[in-house]
């Protein structure tokens, strides 16, 4: 039986035969369906996915006409991380003119709303200058990053230390206090950047610090939307389900802990977000086929219920893209093409 080149979730190459590839696809979709209580992919979906993965070509793409928006987060950081010493406005111009970006994001190296607060008036003129010389829509973005509000980085006791010691009540109280502070900071910085002319405000890696992180993002979104009805806000997630650090936090009557993408998107829309960026983590010990079938199953369920545009995250280690600093073209193009052709999505 012919062997098909594939990879593991960490990029390590492997070969599968036709039967093994199909078995991986079935196992991946079943895992997602079981976890998120959603439908598995249909036979037609799996057949299409199989064809993409079994393609003998190095690069696979969507059919012409089925392209979607490509949004970049943190691009002004990433270009400097690889040692290209350009300033942030130059980075935006490079992404706009050379990288094929449909939107871009200006961000600060700390990439969190809290440290942005004392330097916001220094960030505003940079955004204002960038807006004069660029053409594509510009977001200003950062992470809610509630971890920065607990000791030793912030004023409140650290839930990550309290919880393993069984201090549940104290951890919950601390998390509730961090939510209030984070909402204040996000609204403060988001307002400043919107008033400087940003096309959108991006809340990135939401939920990285658990359910309190998601709650703060939803509350801040709601406040910003009330303050500026025309504002565009994107909520991009950190992981596939909301980690219950607190466990009992609710947004307008819905418990947040444990929610998967198809439930998260409803709340994002309810809070007033314009675009939602769901995430599925790549499992490094499973195959690309398993990961891709799994990711598409979660995303398909999300796309079916979404009433706002969704841009699934397809960066390193998410959306079946391998966990590697330099994900291979074969894996990324297959993931990109498969996600775009099988999910009712709006962008990546």
């Amino acid at each position, binding site marked *: 039986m012919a062997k098909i080149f594939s990879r593991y979730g960490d990029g390590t190459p492997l070969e599968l035969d036709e039967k093994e590839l199909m078995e991986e696809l079935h196992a991946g979709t079943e895992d997602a369906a079981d976890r998120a209580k959603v439908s598995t992919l249909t036979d037609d979906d799996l057949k299409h996915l199989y064809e993409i993965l079994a393609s003998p070509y190095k*690069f696979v793409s969507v059919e012409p006409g089925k392209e979607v*928006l490509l949004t970049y987060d943190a691009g002004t950081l990433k270009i400097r991380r690889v040692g290209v010493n350009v300033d942030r406005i130059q980075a935006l111009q490079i992404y706009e003119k050379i990288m*094929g970006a449909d939107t871009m994001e200006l961000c600060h190296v700390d990439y969190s709303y809290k440290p942005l607060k004392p330097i916001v008036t220094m960030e505003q003129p940079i955004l204002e200058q960038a807006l*004069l010389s660029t053409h594509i829509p510009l977001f200003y973005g950062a992470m809610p990053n509630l971890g920065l509000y607990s000791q030793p980085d912030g004023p409140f006791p650290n839930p990550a230390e309290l919880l393993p010691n069984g201090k549940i009540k104290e951890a919950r109280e601390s998390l509730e206090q961090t939510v209030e502070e984070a909402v204040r900071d996000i609204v403060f910085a988001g307002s400043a950047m919107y008033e400087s*002319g940003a*096309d*959108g405000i991006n809340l990135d890696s939401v939920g990285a610090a658990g359910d309190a992180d998601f709650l703060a993002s939803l509350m801040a979104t709601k406040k910003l939307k009330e303050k500026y009805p025309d504002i565009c806000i994107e909520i991009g997630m950190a992981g596939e389900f909301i980690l219950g650090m607190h466990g009992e936090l609710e947004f307008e009557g819905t418990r947040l802990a444990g929610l998967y993408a198809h439930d998260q998107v409803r709340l994002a829309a309810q809070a007033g977000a*314009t675009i939602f960026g769901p995430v599925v983590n790549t499992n490094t010990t499973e195959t690309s086929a398993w990961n891709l079938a799994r990711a598409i199953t979660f995303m398909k369920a999300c796309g079916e219920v979404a009433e706002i545009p969704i841009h699934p995250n397809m960066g390193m280690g998410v959306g079946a893209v391998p966990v590697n600093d330099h*994900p291979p073209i074969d894996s990324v193009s297959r993931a990109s093409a498969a996600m775009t052709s099988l999910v009712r999505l709006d962008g990546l």
Partner: protein
Amino acid sequence: MAITHAHASGMGGMRGAGDLVARVQMSKGMRTWEAKQYVADKLGVAVAELTDPVIMTEVREDMNIGQITPLPGCAKGIEAKFNIQKALDIQINCVDRFRKRAAI
């Protein structure tokens, strides 16, 4: 990785009309397929042509809405965005702010 996505499934940004479709989505909350149709109607092209760099370069030049390779005297940056706002009939935050700050 970014370039791989751009080639595999992206709209191409300013090489096509990706930035314009994104603007409509961000401004009006439209899904991408609706925003594509909206932009195509406003530009007078077919939806399939929105990602064709040959056609879109000409359209962008004719409408003066910003090009990858700027020509002498063409609208660039905020100037182009004034024209995009008019062509697409959408709100662009920085254009409105510019107008207010420049008292025009």
